[in-house]
């Protein structure tokens, strides 16, 4: 979506054009959902968080200044929703662990649908990274955000984001180097 499309849509949203909100959903819901899937590794949670993201967007659209792109703004809301959900989950999981004994391991929903072994392996390793590193690599390489946009999403300086992304890539390389796929051995 070009900058002028963004500006036009933002203008329509502020002017109260009837289908402007629908247009925002149609243009951006896939990117938001995919971002949530990569962060949560759970399709159901990703759906819920995507809905929460757009609900928050309607509440805050009037305050949006338009200094960043709409996609960047939505990614920022989505990331905030994810962090909030993760904090809540950590408190809840801790309680369940104490009650049940052990957490239930989940299946990565993305890996099972990837036909290519190498892509599947890369995806699995990506999702084995810790959340901060995974977030950086997903935002930059999978979601296509620039370092400046990532800085807006994460609330960090551009230089810090750039350096941390490079470090995350090194971590991914190290994990890939430790694990060689069965077909390549």
């Amino acid at each position, binding site marked *: 979506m070009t900058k002028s499309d963004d500006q036009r849509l933002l203008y329509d949203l502020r002017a109260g054009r009837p289908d402007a*909100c629908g247009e925002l959903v149609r243009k951006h819901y896939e990117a938001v959902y995919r971002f949530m899937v990569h962060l949560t590794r759970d399709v159901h949670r990703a759906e819920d968080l995507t*809905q929460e993201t757009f609900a928050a967007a*309607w509440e805050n659209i009037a305050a949006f200044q338009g200094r960043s792109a709409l996609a960047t703004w939505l990614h920022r809301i989505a990331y905030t929703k994810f962090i909030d959900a993760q904090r809540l989950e950590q408190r809840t999981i801790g309680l369940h662990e104490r009650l049940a004994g052990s957490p239930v391991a989940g299946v990565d929903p993305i890996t099972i649908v990837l036909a290519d072994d190498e892509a599947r392996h890369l995806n699995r390793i990506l999702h084995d990274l810790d959340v901060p590193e995974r977030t950086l690599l997903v935002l930059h390489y999978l979601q296509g955000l620039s370092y400046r946009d990532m800085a807006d999403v994460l609330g960090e300086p551009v230089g810090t984001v750039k350096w941390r992304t490079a470090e995350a890539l090194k971590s991914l390389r190290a994990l890939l180097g430790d694990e060689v796929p069965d077909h390549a051995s």
Partner: protein
Amino acid sequence: MHPDLSPDALEGRLRSLPPPPMPDGLKARLLAHVPATAPASRRRWPVWTGLAVAVATACLLAVLAWPRHHRPTLVPPAPETIHEGSSQAYPDVARLPAFSWPLEESSPVRVSTALPADLFD
């Protein structure tokens, strides 16, 4: 053959990872919760009005409190009130510095200033 793990190759592989599939019905569910129109922008005019009033008040106070320019006075200041018996009523003449008239004073007038006699005719 081991996959290329160079940074450039790895970046390329990340970028070419296929996106996760979209669940059925997600778009419809999201559109179902879309408001008919975007919420109206929060009214900011009270804030701006208050700000304008505050600035105007500050400017007015600044003008009123601005010190007047001290213009040079053409009239010598009024003499101090002299109280009878005050020791400062008259300066001690003996302590005044000596003042001597100029010894030579040439008149700037070069022509006679005598009045002609026929003037009074």
